[in-house]
């Protein structure tokens, strides 16, 4: 029983970064813009969040800083993709390279420094709750709040004007434009949102999960988030499932380490998140008939009214 709680608690704790980043990417892609810069934006967000929180002594400002820094990179990507109609794959890769370099260059003085971080909510009345008490005790406020983004985005996409506009802009920008949808503005907005979410995801790592700044601390979670959007077939609820799956793998790794059980050699365990991401990708591509209506039809294609 304790083992189970341990695994579930770690799962919950290690999934929010992937969740936030993939939800952001999901909205960006629903609007028609493929953003392969998530990894770079997460790194920049992680650094900016950590540094801002540390200098301003405010976690809230830290989160704002993370969103602002990653958001700027997202605007750059949006400008190239929306206005210049540049290749979205190359632009995204360039943003990842730039973000990785920037965070490494500017972050060097902060390696090994300590700063503010979100502490777990344990040690209060929460511990006493039956069953979920010990589970919740290890979580932090930030991570738990992330879960609220899932229903919020489901509501946004399915039941609001804005959601309808986003879906239309990603499915058929020409038709949406003809109907009066401001396609360029929607796509900017979606990309910016995706960037801010990636920034928050990075901040979760540097302010909550493993407090502090470390070069390349995302370890490919940005890429995993992109894969999870495909796994999620562009539905927020399934993105949550994907993120939890990633968290579970992480938790198992900890569990085996902590208990000293070596069913699988450690290095194979380290590889598992990456291998299973590919596996999951294969699974959805092979098994699922294309889910019409949710796959953004115009994903990755630039739109211009003239052509």
């Amino acid at each position, binding site marked *: 029983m304790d083992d189970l709680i341990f695994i579930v608690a770690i799962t919950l704790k290690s999934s929010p970064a992937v969740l936030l980043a993939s939800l952001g990417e999901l909205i960006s892609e629903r609007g028609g813009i493929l953003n392969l810069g998530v990894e770079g934006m997460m790194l920049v967000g992680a650094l900016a969040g950590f540094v801002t929180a540390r200098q301003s002594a405010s976690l809230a400002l830290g989160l704002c800083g993370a969103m602002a820094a990653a958001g700027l990179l997202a605007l750059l990507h949006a400008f190239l993709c929306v206005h210049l109609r540049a290749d979205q794959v190359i632009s995204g890769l360039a943003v990842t390279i730039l973000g990785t370099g920037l965070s490494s260059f500017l972050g060097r003085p902060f390696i090994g420094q300590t700063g503010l971080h979100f502490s777990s909510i344990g040690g209060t009345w929460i511990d006493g709750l039956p069953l979920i008490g010990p589970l919740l005790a290890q979580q932090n406020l930030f991570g738990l709040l992330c879960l609220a983004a899932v229903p919020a985005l489901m509501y946004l996409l399915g039941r609001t004007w*804005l959601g309808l506009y986003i*879906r239309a802009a990603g499915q058929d920008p020409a038709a949406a434009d003809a*109907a009066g949808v401001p396609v360029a503005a929607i796509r900017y907005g979606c990309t910016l949102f995706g960037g801010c979410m990636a920034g928050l995801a990075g901040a979760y790592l540097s302010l909550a999960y493993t407090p502090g700044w470390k070069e390349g601390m995302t370890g490919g979670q940005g890429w995993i988030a992109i894969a999870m959007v495909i796994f999620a077939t562009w539905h927020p609820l399934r993105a949550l499932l994907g993120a939890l799956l990633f968290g579970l793998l992480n938790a198992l790794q900890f569990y085996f380490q902590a208990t000293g059980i070596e069913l699988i050699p450690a290095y194979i365990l380290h590889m598992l998140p990456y291998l299973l991401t590919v596996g999951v990708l294969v699974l959805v591509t092979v098994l699922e008939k294309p889910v019409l209506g949710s796959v953004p039809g115009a994903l990755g294609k630039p739109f211009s009214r003239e052509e």
Partner: protein
Amino acid sequence: MSLPSSAPAAPILELDGISKRFGPVVANRRIQLKVYPGEIHAVLGENGAGKSTLMSILAGRYRPDTGRILLDGQPVSFASPAQALARGIGMVYQRFMLVDALSVVENLLLGHARGRFRLDIDAACRKIASFSQAYGLAVDPRKTVRQLSMGERQRVEILKLLLRQARILIFDEPTAVLAPPEVESFFRVLRRLSRKGHTILFITHKLEEVLQMAQRISIMRQGALVATLTPRQVSSRRELARLMVGREIVLNVHKQPSNAGEVILAAEGLRARDDTGQVLFEDIRLHLKKGEILALTGVAGNGQSPLAAALAGMPPAFEGRITYRGRPFENSRWQRRPKPNMVYIPEDRHTTASVGPLSLTDNFLLTRLKNFRRQAHLARGRARLATGDILTRYGINAPAGPQSLARQLSGGNLQKFILARELDRRPDVIIAESPTSGLDVRATEEIWRLLLQQREQAGVLLVSGDLREVLALADRVAVMFRGRILATLSTARAEQVARIGLLMAGVPEKANRHAIEA
């Protein structure tokens, strides 16, 4: 419903000296046109006559270089379609502007950014239902657009305009994608709209429609408006056609009676499904003889295209048997087999039959690679000479000869190039899919001539939904509906020709069921 000529009403819309050029091309030249409230006004002209540009100017998509638009006597200028729509002018384009993945109601809600954040689907559905009722535009608002027929999609487009209070409705080739009965019901809707006081403008090149529907007819030629008439003023179709083309219409290519030889390609019990398991075609039995043109016709989307592709050895995979020169083949062997004497002209000439960013030489190599190689080395020099040769022989106009990029060619020249490349192989079977769609009269004529010439030494399977083309070229016509061939008829017999329209709409009369294998 009074004729505008006798009506004292002031024009609702007046175009005064409208001109528009795109670079060196003059699309509209000093157009004068008056449109009266409640009339059904046809704009007739060939491809490239400037009708679509003129209507797009009215709908706010383009701005005129010179001239004025008067709406209710007041000069107006539109910067965007939205502004035109705000003043009550809306247009239904030939390519529908609907988001296929969204439902009807969602499409109708798009662009209505009003007040509240939340979507009220139910209220919108109720509103749509009341409009549908009033205008006889039946459509289920909760269905996804992708599930709708072309006729239903057109109704959604009309609803979209009506919901935004459009008074003047412009249609661009509205019947091009409709089956004959759908055309009838579309015309009923037009009359109803007109009775309710809406003004209708429709672009077309079909003379019959104009004479059947229009209260006034404006004819355009080479960017200019050459005449505006009432149907009573039109003495004959021939005259109308002459006004439209500017010379005696020559689309009557002279077809000798066919001299059919042995069966060269035959299919037995062919069927195929798409990825989602939907039947594309089934129960197909046909044969093609040397020396004849067999047309495969039907309204778009009834299985002709996939059947043509399968016969040509491309996906989809089929069950059943194809017999070529007396030898039977199953699917996999047929697809793998090289077919040096069989050519396929797909409908999509821009990305399937040619590669836009490559030179004509490289495009020539697309199907001729085997003849121009030394082991792995590409003999591009020789290919360039061969390409230059067919350019001259077939009179293809290419700006830089064999070096020209395929995308620099006009549609007609590109199609001629593709045909030339394939005919140069001296084929015995030609499968040509909508070979003249989107081409002007002159190019159409040339393509038709080429195909008719081929009848001497090959069997031609012509896939076309254009009845004019089918009747001009084919010796026999197989009509397809929902993936099946309903009947195969002879074009030499008038009583059989008369049935083609009904068969295309899927109305199998008893007599047709037992149609003669001509």
